[in-house]
């Protein structure tokens, strides 16, 4: 009894390292859905729900995100005010650009693809894009499309304490309850994954970042991963953070690490 009280009053043990976390994370879904191959999680809820998967595959015959990819391709080829192009700043191997993000950069924190695009635009004298703008989403859709088949490979370098701190901050955010509904991200996407919320099943977090940006049928348009985060935080009735805020970039860093090894298959189509 005394020991229980003593242990109960002590701070909880420190967290495991990122790779131990990832293996446990993957193992959790494997134990819940042993029949689902891990690679399938790149397809989100369609890995778990056969009916929804059939509908999704039918939608993929004429992908609603195609216009976004085309527009993104045009933006990629558009010259910036100083005469340069994005390829001069982001890299010439177009299929290797998306997989480089998110990544930790000392003194900058977690740099996402969107942040990198805006940094390039800014350096070339162009106006920074709003993070919910059609231009930004179309370009990231194009870069995701070009990177299809590449694997997520987020690194938390041991010699960069800031990277581990950002990872831990994202992890903490993910598991913390917030808002009037007192929900954590994990409550829906880990603990209750696969269960119904009204007519829809809750998707797994494993594989979440692989397929963004996505075309949401209910919205009739494309949204970014951070807009999805924004919606979740709002839905639990907490005040959402800004798109590309440090909080959301850290969550993206953590979740992307959890999905390491899964194929990038964006842009996607979701209900």
């Amino acid at each position: 009894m005394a020991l229980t009280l003593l242990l109960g009053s002590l701070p909880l043990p420190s967290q495991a390292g990122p790779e131990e976390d990832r293996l446990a994370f993957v193992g959790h879904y494997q134990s819940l859905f042993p029949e689902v191959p891990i690679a399938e999680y790149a397809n989100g809820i369609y890995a778990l729900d056969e009916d929804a998967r059939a509908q999704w595959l039918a939608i993929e015959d004429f992908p609603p995100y195609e216009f976004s990819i085309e527009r993104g391709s045009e933006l990629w080829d558009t010259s910036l005010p100083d005469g340069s192009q994005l390829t001069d700043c982001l890299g010439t191997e177009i299929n290797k650009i998306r997989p480089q993000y998110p990544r930790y950069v000392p003194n900058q924190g977690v740099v996402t693809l969107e942040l990198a695009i805006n940094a390039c635009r800014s350096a070339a004298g162009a106006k920074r894009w709003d993070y919910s703008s059609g231009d930004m989403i179309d370009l990231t859709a194009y870069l995701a499309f070009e990177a299809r088949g590449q694997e997520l490979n987020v690194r938390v370098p041991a010699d960069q304490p800031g990277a581990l701190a950002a990872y831990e901050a994202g992890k903490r955010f993910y598991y913390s309850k917030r808002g009037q509904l007192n929900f954590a991200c994990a409550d829906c996407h880990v603990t209750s994954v696969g269960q119904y919320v009204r007519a829809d099943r809750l998707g797994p977090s494993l594989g979440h970042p692989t397929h963004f940006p996505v075309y949401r049928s209910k919205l009739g348009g494309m949204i970014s991963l951070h807009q999805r985060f924004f919606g979740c935080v709002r839905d639990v009735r907490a005040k959402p953070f800004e798109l590309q805020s440090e909080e959301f970039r850290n969550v993206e860093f953590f979740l992307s690490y959890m999905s390491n090894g899964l194929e990038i298959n964006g842009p996607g189509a979701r209900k």
Partner: protein
Amino acid sequence: MDRARVSKHVIGALLVSLFAGGCASEFDRRFDEAERLRQDVAARGYEWINTADILEQAQASEASGDLAAALVLVEQARFQATAALLQADREAEAWKRRVVR
């Protein structure tokens, strides 16, 4: 109007204005407290979705002269911010229990 009656009106008006002033300052005090709590919880990243909106509505009610409604709204906002702070305190450790291991 006799002198006594005038005095009664003057004293009455004085009391009403003192009462209203007291309520207004009571509103300001409670509003400032609720706003401080909201800012505290926002700094910790746990602000609830409509606490700031409720405080704005309280200010509008007070400005329109509906002090009773304004005080009710301020109390709602104070309650929300206090509950959110408790949530932030609890989650300082509680989140670790949810980590998949």
